């Protein structure tokens, strides 16, 4: 049984290797928001192999729905940069995208939404032509204050947004460009996650120490999950049915069960943990340690920080691009 699985895996890798030859190391791309660059890290050697200028204040990045391009949002530069996720090379720069602090596509891939933290608005773009690397502005929705993180409903109709300075959350109708509700959640809210059933949101309350469990119907706070002081960002590990939740002040990452909403483990990590991504089949968690100018790698089994990789100033968004070689580990 085990042997059969290994053989199948080996065969799959061989085929993949033949197609994608020559095999190349995996690549991590990290946005140094405090110095307008991104760092390229070889995921095999855990070393920074390059640094490129990108534009003013890059904060978040994500793959296009077809996974072909990586999109980097320059918040102060007001533009989007299309990057090849395998090489880190710039493909195109799309101007006149106002303050794309946070980005996201609806699950049906029809809409692209940005949260403009500095300019207090949420913009909706038609993403039909994203294959040609084009976007068309459809709605500009003023909302106060500091919209910072986004989560999309499965119906692709609603987007939930946290309003950092207002300490509230809101639901927006993407198609109509209207605010459905806005409600107080707690001081300085940040990251959020939508439960698969679509009935509840978990919202990080950075000015306090917990995730607020919020009703998606009206924004009412139903419960609290204490995770750590300065609770900031969430990342879902679907394989384990866990959420990893960073706490900026306590410097911890808490694992929260996505069905029971119980904290199952707390990891002690480096200063100012922010964006995260899992790697090597869920063995490692990579995250940016913003106050320490580095990326850290956490071994999720042992709970040890196994690598500290120096990058640029105030590293924020991170994307990991595996390939045949790294996936085989």
């Amino acid at each position: 049984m085990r042997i059969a699985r290994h053989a199948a895996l080996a065969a799959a890798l061989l085929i993949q290797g033949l197609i994608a030859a020559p095999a190349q190391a995996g690549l991590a791309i990290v946005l140094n928001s405090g110095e307008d660059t991104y760092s390229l890290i070889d995921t095999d050697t855990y070393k920074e192999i390059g640094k490129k200028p990108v534009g003013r204040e890059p904060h978040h990045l994500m793959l296009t729905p077809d996974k072909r391009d990586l999109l980097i949002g320059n918040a102060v530069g007001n533009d989007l940069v299309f990057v090849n996720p395998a090489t880190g090379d710039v493909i195109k720069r799309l101007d006149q995208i106002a303050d794309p602090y946070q980005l996201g596509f609806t699950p049906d891939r029809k809409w692209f939404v940005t949260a403009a933290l500095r300019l207090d608005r949420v913009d909706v773009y038609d993403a039909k032509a994203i294959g040609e690397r084009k976007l068309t502005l459809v709605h500009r929705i003023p909302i106060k204050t500091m919209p910072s993180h986004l989560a999309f409903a499965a119906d692709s109709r609603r987007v939930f947004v946290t309003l950092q300075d207002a300490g509230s959350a809101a639901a927006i109708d993407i198609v109509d460009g209207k605010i459905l509700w806005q409600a107080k959640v707690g001081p300085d809210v940040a990251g959020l996650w939508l439960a698969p059933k679509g009935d509840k949101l978990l919202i990080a309350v950075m000015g306090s120490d917990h995730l607020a469990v919020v009703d998606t119907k009206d924004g009412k706070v139903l419960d609290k999950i204490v995770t750590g002081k300065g609770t900031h960002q969430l990342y879902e590990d679907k394989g384990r049915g866990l959420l990893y939740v960073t706490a900026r002040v306590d410097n911890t990452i808490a694992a929260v069960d996505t069905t029971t909403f119980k904290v199952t483990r707390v990891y002690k990590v480096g200063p100012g943990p922010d964006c995260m991504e899992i790697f090597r089949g869920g063995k490692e968690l990579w995250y940016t340690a913003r106050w320490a100018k580095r990326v850290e790698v956490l071994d999720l089994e042992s709970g040890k920080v196994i690598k500290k990789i120096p990058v640029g100033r105030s590293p924020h968004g991170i994307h990991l691009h595996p390939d045949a070689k790294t996936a085989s580990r």
Partner: protein
Amino acid sequence: MIGDIEAWLFETLVQPAIFELGLMAYIEDAFTWTQFALWGVIQIAVIYLVCRPLEAWRPVEPRADGAAIRTDVIYTLLQRLGVLPLLFFVLFTPLSAWFDGLLRDAGYVPRTIDQWVPALAGMPLVTFLIYALVLDFAEYWRHRLQHGLNWWWALHSLHHDQRQMTLWSDNRNHVLDDVTQAMWMGAVAQLIGVEPGTFPLLVLLFGLVESLSHANARIAFGRFGDRILVSPRFHREHHAIAFRPGEPARACNFAALFPLWDMLFGTARFDGRFAATGVEGRTTPEAIGRGWLMQQWLGFGRFLRALVPARGADRTEGGRQHEGA
């Protein structure tokens, strides 16, 4: 190394305070400010260690007026530890967002110098030097206007008021002048695409050279050196022009870093004699103002009177510098 100290300082002092104050929405700005303050401490330490022994070794004049020096120390701390810059940052963030939006709407994407000149990629030192040259050029012209326009001289003469000039005198400026300088330098840096990581280093360079050039030290860099970098003798001659009792003076030596600009535009003088500094007609402590607050207040009054000149008022009121060829 500095990065580690910064992270430690931020984690153990700043962030917990911000958290308790309920200001976590501004935590990233606090991080930027921590860097500024830390650089400021290092800068002041370096300046003191370099300039103070020079002042003790070859003083131009005796340290007679301790109170005047202490006031300049306050100016330096307020500016370099980030108290004033933080204030400007809070006041001008909306303005800079607007300026940035304006550039974007006009289709201007600031490019870094090595994007203009690809050959410069991988030569960070040369790039840094070019940035310093361009910013110094901008500062040269700002400084000439400070002397050329009546209302601006009303403010800038506060800087020239110091008769006991020392390494602490560089930051002795009216806050309105600090504001214009911050906006001017920031805008130029943005136009030529200075990376934010590089900007503090440039500010550091300007601070080091300018503190040295105000030092109470009989020091010049020699025939060639004086033409490459602004020396204490070169800048003291600039401070002498506003204070030449009974002797005509020629406006000169405006550059902060590179005398090159004064040489190009015909305002360089390399024959400085370490003359007395100050502003003509404003020599008593009452006229100059005792302490930071009083000096700011008097400077603001001069500024208003220059903007709205009273009929028949003496144009040279409060000390007018000689404007020569």
